[in-house]
């Protein structure tokens, strides 16, 4: 039986590349670049008061031709773990005066990283007037979702929930030594994880505890 299973596994892996990599009808995600950007926020993991990891961006768009139609695009970039913990000496005065400079270093890098991002989730929806709340917040019609799991092949789904989970990871032997290390976007059994490398997060925590 074992031999049979091994043979099965061997053949399945030979054909697997094509099963996995050959898409007969590839899904092409939409392009919202002509829509109006209404909000952009960063996907940030706060490791401590002075250390964070930036993993990507979430951008909301509005259709300029239909103000009731919206889209959200989630993109990832190379993780940027930043440690701003510094010695307390002189902190009260100097840190305040230099904060714009340190922010600029951070912002310049984040701007550069954000400009080189990879989108992996697009959600498009419409709203209509809600007489109960007296706002335009009642979902109307389908919610369209384009999603790119970690294998890289886009899928398209309608009206399905996108689950977002924070990932934690144990960074030591101690049972309680779990830290946030990433975010998982999941649709059904498929997921895409954006995360920081374990070495970086350990370094970030070590530096933070030494210098803060």
């Amino acid at each position, binding site marked *: 039986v*074992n031999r049979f*299973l*091994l043979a099965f*596994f061997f053949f*399945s*892996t030979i054909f*697997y*590349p094509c099963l*996995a*990599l050959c898409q007969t009808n590839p899904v092409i995600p939409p392009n919202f670049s002509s829509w109006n950007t209404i909000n952009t926020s960063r996907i940030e993991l706060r490791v401590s008061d002075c250390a964070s990891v930036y993993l990507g961006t979430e951008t909301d768009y509005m259709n300029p031709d239909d103000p009731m139609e919206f889209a959200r695009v989630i993109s*990832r*970039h*190379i*993780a*940027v*773990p*930043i*440690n*701003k913990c*510094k010695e307390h*000496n*002189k*902190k*009260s*005065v*100097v840190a305040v*005066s*230099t*904060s*714009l*400079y*340190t922010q*600029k*270093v*951070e*912002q310049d*890098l984040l701007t550069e990283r954000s400009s*080189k*991002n*990879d989108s992996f989730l697009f959600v498009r929806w419409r709203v209509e007037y809600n007489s109960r709340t007296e706002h335009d917040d009642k979902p109307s019609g389908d919610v369209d979702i384009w999603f790119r799991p*970690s*294998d*890289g*092949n886009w899928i398209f789904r309608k009206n399905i929930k996108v689950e977002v989970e924070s*990932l934690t*990871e*144990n960074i030591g*032997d101690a*049972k309680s030594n779990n830290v946030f290390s*990433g975010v*998982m976007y999941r649709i059904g059994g498929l997921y*895409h*994880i*954006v*995360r*920081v*490398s*374990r070495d*970086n997060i350990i370094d970030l925590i070590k*530096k933070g505890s030494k210098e803060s």
Partner: protein
Amino acid sequence: MKKYYLIPLFILVFFGTGCASKGLKIDPTNPVFTPKNDFEMNYGFFITEDERKKGYSAENNSKFQESISPFNQINTLEEFNKFEKIFWQIRDTDPNTPQNEYKDIIDQRISDIKNEIFFTDIDTPGTSFKRNGGLRGEMARVYLLHGAPSFKDRLPENHTSNRSELIVWYYIDVQGRHLFRFLFYEKYGKMELFKNPSTLFSYEILFNPLSSPLREISMKAFPTSQELMELWMGLDRDDPQWIFRTPLIEFTDYTTDIVMEGGDDKKIGALDPPEPVALAAVRYKPTILGQPGDLSNRNFVFNLQHSFIPVYFRIGYPTGKPVFSILTSCSNLDWEHVEDKMKSVLTLRMSFQNKTTRAIREYFVRLTLTVAKDFCDQKGTVVIYLNEQENFAPQEKNRGTLGDLVNSLESGIYVLNVDLQHVDTKKSAGGWREEITIK
């Protein structure tokens, strides 16, 4: 206030400008004479010791494109203009904007001083910068360096207790703590800055004619112990809230971080020329980890993504134990041309955490993939069977292979975390999180 202040003021103004260019005598006909003297007059309190004596060294600081002579040695207009440009450039508090906010603030303060903004002030009426040394006086020095105080008050002279007129300027931070307490006292018609707070507060020191901080605020040239005691008792009546007495004893609430003058690496000198913000920021710049290095001199063929390596991670169970492999097309990876081959180096880390015991086992390997130059042109596929790969995780005592690690796991349900990243470009597959059952 007495009127004989005019004599020292005249002497100061007369000689003040002539002494402006310390260290080097410049001929008044030299075109640099006036701008340099004006600069010293307006911004002299901001020129650091290094700027006066060492100038800007391109060798020691990459911020400077060329070295510029020390301020004290500058004797040409061209050199002065270069100095002035750098001087303000490194003080610009917000490099994101075209204007220099710091210079704007200082110029506004100079204008305030010239316009005598405190002369009609409700708390300290009659306060004149001009009478107290103008732009080079101590009062102007404090105002130029720190702006308007958060709180100010005046205590008229008391002839009964022989105490001079007092003015306090308090600078208070957002926490409500006193950053600086400056006390000015009248001496020979001019407001002097009190610079010798007695850190040890005791009546023995307070009434000692040789060491008492009260000597300076006394109208008497050489007050006796009795006169100091009377002065203190007078203050007790005139200053029940200790607004004027506190600065005699303590300059700041941040005694470990701040001194009035003569700061060093650990302490700020409130009256020292402030360190230019761009130079201070170098020490305060954030530490950024995990970024790709400079790859411009290396010959890379990148995938179509900026941060992502699309990869299949496969778990099979051919014999009951999990078998791991990763699979991707050649064009999904970043490759470096090395001689006549292409190389891609990835790090793969896996952790297995037992859901019941929470015990963790680690696996780490650096996968060096080398393929022929035309491999991607031929739409090659990369398949790596991981169980045979050696384990280099430092946490694991017995290295072996991934297969050995899996075989040594106790039966149970495990949370598997997988992270795959390109060593040089730092692009990653994002990772995988799966639950696996070990039987």
